[in-house]
């Protein structure tokens, strides 16, 4: 396999895995949010924010994939001729956000569900409720950071 395949595999897995995690997270949070809105439609905006919180991992995956693709020239046409080693480097650099994105989005989704419960019962505690999912997100951000730094520092 030539390097470009590995590079593309890295970009793809960043989008696929992180996106899958976010889809699950936003999904479960959305179910809980819908339940709250049936009881009290005025809480729509608050629970919508809660639902969106686990959605960021998918965006982080997209971000890393985009940087990786533009790095190897797949976006502008005329892909660079990568060695196997460089391709593998890019693949590995994409892994943090791919894997951490997947797992953290799932857990963030569950935390969001619990926080939506807080909003349903005590809407004035919105600020605190929002904090719990944001704590989980930290690790996705750390992974994103390493992925970005690693991808952008690889010499093509």
């Amino acid at each position, binding site marked *: 396999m030539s390097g470009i395949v590995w590079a593309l595999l890295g970009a793809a897995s960043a989008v696929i895995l992180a996106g899958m995690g976010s889809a699950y997270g936003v999904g479960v949070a959305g179910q809980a949010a819908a339940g709250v809105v049936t009881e009290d439609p005025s809480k729509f905006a608050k629970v919508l924010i809660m639902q969106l919180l686990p959605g960021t991992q998918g965006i*982080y995956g997209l971000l890393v994939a985009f940087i990786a693709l533009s790095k190897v020239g797949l976006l502008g046409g005329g892909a660079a001729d990568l060695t196997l080693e460089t391709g593998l480097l890019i693949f590995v650099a994409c892994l943090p956000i791919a894997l951490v994105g997947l797992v953290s989005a799932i857990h963030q989704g569950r935390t969001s569900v619990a926080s939506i419960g807080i909003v349903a019962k005590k809407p004035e*505690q919105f600020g605190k409720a929002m904090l719990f999912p944001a704590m989980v997100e930290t690790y996705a*951000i750390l992974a994103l950071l390493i992925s970005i730094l690693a991808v952008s520092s690889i010499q093509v």
Partner: protein
Amino acid sequence: MAVLQMQRLSICAMKKNRKAILEELQSLGVMEIDTTMPLDPDLAVMDTMESRQTFEKSALLCDQALEVLQEYAPEKTSMFSSLEGKKLVDKTSYEEASEHREAVLKKARKLISRKKRLTENKAAIVKLETQIETLTPWLSLDVPLNYNGTKKVAMIIGSISGDTSLDQVYQRLAQDAPDLEAFDIQKISADGDQLCIAAACLREDAAKLEEALRMQGFARPSQSIRKVPAEEKNHLESEIRHFVKENQDLEEKIRDMADSRERLRLVSDYFRARAQKYEILGHVPQSKQTFFITGYLPKKKVPALEKLLNEKFDLVVEAEDAEGDEVPIVLQNGRFAGAAEGVLASFGLPHWGEMDPSKVMAAFYVFLFGLMLSDAAYGLIVFVACAVLLKKFPRMSEGMSKSIRLFMYCGLSTLFWGIMFGGYFGDLINVVSRTFFGHEVGIRPVWFAPLENPMKLLIYSMLFGLIHLFVGLGMKGYMAIKAKKYLDFFCDVILWYMMLIGLLIMLIPSDLFVSISQMNIVFPPIVNTLGKVLAIAGAVGILLMSGRANKNPALRIALGAYDLYNITGWLSDILSYSRLLALGLATGVIASVVNQMGSMVGNSVFGVIVFILVFIVGHVFNIAINLLGAYVHTCRLQYVEFFGKFYEGGGKAFEPFKANTKYVDIKEETKI
């Protein structure tokens, strides 16, 4: 940056004035009545439960009437109606409405009874419609459904369930009752589920025929109607028309009452305020001739209140500085710091004796928010949108106006950082000039482009974080000094500063830092030595002093060692600020993705249209998702990292006794 000094006010006055005084206090809305005081055994409280409930019911009645009006004569509301806030009504029209409260209540009752009548009519219409439906198969029958026949001939009318035909009925009759001969069966209708028939036979055979038919599943119609079905249908239809007409009239009448909406609102609020007054009244201890009210209010408002009350009533007022955890907290800040009060309140107001960090927090909030969003165009959009909202809806609720003001400042900060980092809708200018005009131009960042040098921004993010945290530690020190706890100030603040600064001086020239930052900073040897001395002195000091509350020397050292372990907490706190870089990059990169997708069709008319569509959808999405991200993570940095250093919160919010209205705000003539 101020928590207002509160005073505890006790009022003692004549019982005959109690309602007037309470009304006065309610309309001023400056004092929180303390209802938690234990009752003196010589005093009694009045049971106001019943009258309170009457008032609440009246308020509810008006609310229901308003709902009815809203259903049949909906008021046009704009998308931003939730921002408009309550309407300001002057006192005279409020008083005028409350004088006519009985008339208004009558109207409300009328509205509700009309609504009830409407609902009943609707149910009646549905019932009539089902009757018509069951009648439909019989429409071609020209005798009444319960027609029994003539003297000699019996008529049997009914239906046979199941998908059967007249021929089959005849055949089975021939089998089941071969001796029956003189009869005739006519089909009225058939629809696959049932066959409706009318059978005629001699009266003496009637029972036999019916019995034979029953074996095939024959049944008489469930409703006995004395009229010919077609006539009955006409009759039912005219009844429906009658109900529909009545409903139209009713709706018209309800719509005609739409002009009493304003009155209903005022009266609803009037009763609500009265119910609240009676609730407080139920907590006011009284003797035979006098009564007592105690409560809290800001110190600076005490003299004015005292003067006002003394002018109007005979009473004794006593004020003392309030202390303790049950004292409610009032913050007073300028326009800028006040904007962050909402963010502070959602973490928790300062507890009694703690300082109000709003001002410092507001500055950092705006700074960090801008750094995370960091796009000049987005910042401008946020700023303009918030400014327009503030201008257009001056009466929006206080909390809402505070948060929008905060976002307005954040928009400015975002604009600033966008210019520093060269982000204008991401790389919009480059992409547009390259795709549609052939040669690429762009605005260079004033400082540097984060995507080209992420390590640099990472280092700066952590530097900003370090400043933020040091300020937090400084606040802790400030509070310790204010409370005259100088030993705490030295041990918990100065020693930590010493150790952390010492460690930093040791870290900066090290290979690790050089390789990360690509900055080779060399200190003179004296500074290096100073760093080591500071770090060691600080560490030893913390080891010895942290457990100073403990007499046991071994335990004291152990606690000190445990406190020293907090250095890892500092490390993770500072690393947490790397989100500034990550979120900043996210905005820029997603914006570039949007621009790139838009430009893929190329330079043509169609290409321009696609570009504009993608531009609008993509950037709206990006602003929304990154605003959310910046909001959440700025809050997190404030709540977890910054407040973790010094702030506890948990104060009780000040809830003055006032008319908590639902629809209107009443403009008070006297204000203090």
